């Protein structure tokens, strides 16, 4: 018999009891749909995490003071107020020394100070805008690009120029009608000229990354934060393979510069973006696996439904099996017939499951946009057919093993 004939004969068996077939098929469909969809949710959240982290740049290491010194706060922050007596804090001087230390795997050291201030135009103002003071290198190490206008230069930093690059949210808040570019803004009373506007960045955390002012480090220190500890040092490695090596070099050099003697109690923490990325990717993978496992259980339950319904079918059609055997059907032919029925049932369920998953993946689930993993569709379909065969084998083998005369006597 050709494949088409086998399928047609299987369909005839399945349509004999439509409701029962549909209910069984529904079980398989839900199983397959949930496998594809939950894997897609896991994948979607993994991608969200990865995007957020790669926005931070993967070639970079971040150094932050660990004893809460921070840079934000105010002009009163200074090295003398730090907790430790002998250990110094990371100031711009330390940053400069680190940059000029000639570390082999370090390309650039970018210090940042941050604070939070009120920014206003002639018409409106915005509270609690984060103000970042940094060097021109900031625009190299940050993934945030200047969309219009230009970044400030190293010359601006040297002269403590009152220029600023602002985020897109802030730009539209302050100048809702025209472009903010070239306009004056007041940062806590001091007028700055807007020289650039940043490209809009997707939000990875609670704060809007587009509500920001970036100004020359020297100007921010002079007017707002003072010359104490910086809030962050961003160190760019020469390439992505050198990140770990750079991390080591920076650690050793910092200990030397800061006079650290007790390495178990460092005054700073170093975060390596790529290791962060790896950790996040690993946890996303295990999350996906977990979701997949939960979905696989529902597929298993669907499969057990197939066994159940096939057992009932075989019992109901015992006499038919007897007739077929009397006409010369071999064990293999009977086995094949019932396996084909089970596999057809699960294949249809599988196809409908894929369709349901494709529709479902167009909607956000718990804030995550599912991203269908390509291989999960053929995988789920293959598994659903395999389930039909696996869970159909026992009932089919029972049918095939019947002696013709016994089967014929059934009512």
């Amino acid at each position, binding site marked *: 018999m050709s494949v088409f004939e086998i399928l047609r004969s299987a369909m005839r068996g399945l349509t*004999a009891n439509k409701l029962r077939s549909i209910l069984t098929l529904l079980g398989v469909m839900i199983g397959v749909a949930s496998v594809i969809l939950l894997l897609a949710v896991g994948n979607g959240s993994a991608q969200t995490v990865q995007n957020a982290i790669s926005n931070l740049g993967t070639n970079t290491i971040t150094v932050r003071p660990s004893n809460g010194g921070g840079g934000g706060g105010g002009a009163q922050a200074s090295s003398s107020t730090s907790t430790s007596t002998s250990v110094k804090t990371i100031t711009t001087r330390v940053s400069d020394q680190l940059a000029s230390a000639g570390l082999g795997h370090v390309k650039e050291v970018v210090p940042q100070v941050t604070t939070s201030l009120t920014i206003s135009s002639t018409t409106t103002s915005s509270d609690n805008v984060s103000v970042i003071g940094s060097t021109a290198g900031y625009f190299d190490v940050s993934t945030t690009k200047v969309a219009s206008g230009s970044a400030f230069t190293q010359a601006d930093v040297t002269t403590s120029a009152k220029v600023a690059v602002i985020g897109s949210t802030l730009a539209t808040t302050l100048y809702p009608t025209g472009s903010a570019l070239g306009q004056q803004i007041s940062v806590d009373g001091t007028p700055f000229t807007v020289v650039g506007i940043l490209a809009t960045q997707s939000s990875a955390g609670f704060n809007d990354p587009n509500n920001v002012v970036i100004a020359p480090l020297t100007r921010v220190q002079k007017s707002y934060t003072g010359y104490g500890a910086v809030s962050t040092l961003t160190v760019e490695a020469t390439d992505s393979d050198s990140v770990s090596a750079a991390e080591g070099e920076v650690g050793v050099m910092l200990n030397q510069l800061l006079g650290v003697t007790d390495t178990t109690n460092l005054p700073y923490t170093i975060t390596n973006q790529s290791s962060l990325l790896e950790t996040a990717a690993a946890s996303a993978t295990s999350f996906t696996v977990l979701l997949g496992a939960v979905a696989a259980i529902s597929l298993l339950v669907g499969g057990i439904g197939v066994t159940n319904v096939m057992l009932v079918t075989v019992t109901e059609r015992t006499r038919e099996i007897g007739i077929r055997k009397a006409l010369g059907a071999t064990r293999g032919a009977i086995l094949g017939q019932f396996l084909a029925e089970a596999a057809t049932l699960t294949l249809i369920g599988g196809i409908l499951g894929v369709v349901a998953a494709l529709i479902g993946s167009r909607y956000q689930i718990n804030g995550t946009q599912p991203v269908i993993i390509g291989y999960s569709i053929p995988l789920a379909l293959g598994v659903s057919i395999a389930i039909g065969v696996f869970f159909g084998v026992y009932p089919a083998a029972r049918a095939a093993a019947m002696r*013709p005369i016994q089967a014929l006597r059934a009512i």
Partner: protein
Amino acid sequence: MSIATQAETVAADSAPPLVLRLDGIHQVYGAGEAAVFALRGIDLAVASGDYLAIMGPSGSGKSTLMNLLGCLDIASEGIYELAGHNVSELTEKELAKVRNREIGFVFQSFNLVPRMSALANVELPLSYGGVRRIERRRRAMEALDMVGLVDRADHQPQELSGGQQQRVAIARALVTSPTLVLADEPTGNLDSASTEEILSIFDHLAGQGRTIVIITHEEHVAQRAHRVLTISDGLIVADRFNEGIAR
């Protein structure tokens, strides 16, 4: 013993080849106290072209014998040779092949596969025999033509009368051109008009030289066969040839 001798003598005289031979066939159902001895030593030879009717009271073992002849069951004891095969020595697969090639079985309760058209039912033995689709269709239509049901080829069993269903079943039994046609009370569930239709088909087949074994408990049905075997309590008690029927 004398009865078996008569049959063997006839077979030897006119020398048509034997289709089947039973030797000391016993069939026991169950065991111990509850054992039922359905057949208690059957010797029988059926020659090619024989039209044999088996009669006997209910419970005498007719169906048991028929099921053995049709290879639907295996005897507890004795030898059964069919078309040169020793049936008790065949494997499961070989048995299926013998059922398919050598035997056409007609049941009292028709036994068509439900939800399958008459044509598909008739094609079934051919598809188990590995006959290709086009050839299968042609031969099935031929068989349906023989029983006069070509116009009902697309009807499902439940859309056919009892007599029509039985004619489809006969077409299905004949479609493989089997060595032996077996019918267990084929008219038992039919009215007299349908019975006559079925019997005239068997007459026609016998005229073509087919080997037919039919079970009946009606004398007028048995009258149309060439040879009548009477069974009682698991033993052959009479084996006679009908008068005036040309062989």
